[in-house]
């Protein structure tokens, strides 16, 4: 295995570790908000690294074989990365907002700033 290939495998390993941490967090944490925190952050970061893996691989193949297919692959991976970076945090925010609106409390929480702000707003309207 040559040095660039080793670099690609190390990038893949980093992605694997972070996705695994996200999965373990999804399995082990006590309530919705902590699970969101673990799962979304770690899977987004792991997916960034897997796109880096594919970009590094296709750039290397493009330099070696000079086929346009690999440049195409790198650009498509970049577009997929941009889509993931835009959509994944937005979806997590929507889930957390829905859970809080339907009255799911964070476990062991001492104070809830968002609920206090909602109460304040209601008072001002009245």
């Amino acid at each position: 295995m040559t040095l660039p290939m080793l670099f690609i495998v190390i990038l893949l390993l980093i992605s694997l570790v972070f996705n695994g941490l996200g999965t373990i967090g999804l399995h082990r944490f006590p309530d919705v908000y902590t699970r969101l925190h673990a799962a979304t952050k770690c899977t987004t970061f792991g997916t960034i690294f897997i796109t880096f893996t594919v970009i590094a691989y296709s750039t290397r193949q493009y330099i070696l074989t000079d086929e346009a297919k690999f440049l195409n692959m790198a650009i498509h991976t970049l577009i997929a990365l941009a889509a993931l970076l835009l959509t994944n945090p937005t979806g997590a925010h929507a889930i957390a907002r829905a859970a809080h609106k339907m009255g799911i409390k964070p476990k062991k929480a001492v104070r809830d700033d968002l609920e206090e702000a909602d109460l304040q707003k209601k008072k001002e309207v009245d």
Partner: protein
Amino acid sequence: MGKGHKGVVFMTSVATLSLIFVLFIVISSYRIVVGPSPYDRLLGLNVVSVLISVIFITFSMETEMGFLLDIALVFIVLNFVATLGFAKYLERGEFR
């Protein structure tokens, strides 16, 4: 060993590592089946979809088929639409 040869060690290591993602999908499916609230199930679905698109991206690298990346992109966007729709539905109890 021609130009741009990938090597057996590299291919087997990439294939083995991408098999572990399937294990992650199985672990995340636990949250879909036994999630206490609907939001946990939705989150599990989200994570499983992201991991499936990761497998698509890895597989496109293994087989050098570029169209798998387009499938992964469409999967990510559809996952986003589904998550937003379900979150809105669970927020109010009805579509608005």
